[in-house]
């Protein structure tokens, strides 16, 4: 039942994307978009993932939108800081280890992507729950101190999106 609900919700999303791409709202485009979305989901589940889509990518829709908005705000805050650092030339580049408490592989990948997207930090490597991060303004190399400065509030947002 839950799986059916997930399919219906994702079909609505795919139908909206299809309507945007087709540039016209009519019953035909909505139906065709939903059917193509269903075919894509079933095909992915059976032949590519060989697992349940929802378990492989546990991410809620509403939480996802909230996460993207907060990510964009964070990008701008860090972007202005990085612009100042770059123009004054006070770079202090270093590599720090950052520990994460996220369990799921997909969530760790999302966290690494958010760290890379935030100006001033790029994820280099991952070993288990430890990420190696280049930091443009390396004030400390201690993982415990550097963690909150680099991760911001991404961890709570990603963990909160588990449904």
């Amino acid at each position, binding site marked *: 039942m839950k799986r059916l609900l997930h399919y219906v919700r994702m079909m609505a999303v795919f139908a909206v994307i299809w309507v945007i791409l087709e540039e016209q709202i009519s019953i035909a485009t909505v139906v065709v978009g939903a059917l193509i979305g269903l075919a894509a989901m079933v095909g992915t589940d059976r032949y590519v993932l060989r697992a349940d889509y929802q378990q492989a990518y546990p991410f809620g829709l509403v939480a996802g939108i909230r996460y993207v908005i907060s990510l964009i705000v964070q990008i701008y805050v860090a972007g202005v800081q990085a612009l100042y650092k770059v123009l004054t030339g006070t770079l202090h580049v270093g590599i720090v280890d950052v520990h994460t408490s996220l369990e799921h592989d997909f969530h760790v990948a999302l966290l690494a992507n958010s760290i890379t997207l935030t100006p*001033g930090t790029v994820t280099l490597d991952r070993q288990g729950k430890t990420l190696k991060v280049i930091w443009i303004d390396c004030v400390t190399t201690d993982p415990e101190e550097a963690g909150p400065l680099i991760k911001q509030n991404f961890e709570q947002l990603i963990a909160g999106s588990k449904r």
Partner: protein
Amino acid sequence: MAQVAALIGQILIGIGLVFMAAGIYSVLRFKDFYSRVVITAKIDTVGFLTLIFGVMFIEGFSFFTLKLVLIVVFELLTNPISTHSIAHSAYASGYKIRKEVRVD
């Protein structure tokens, strides 16, 4: 009203170009590979996003704007992967951080 939106859009595009210009300037200025990679990621995200938001303001609410929203989402998904793979390949082949030489 539409003119005000267009003006805001043009200002946003200008800000985006400033971010990109600063990024290109610093890629040419700094010599260390890692600082260059970090700065290149900054150009892609901040400059590109500001530019796209400016175009959205000029266009107003239409299918074109919604397509731009899709472009932003795909950019947010794919851009960090390319940056990460470049940086990771450098790290895996054993690059060390070089001290920046101040050229004032």
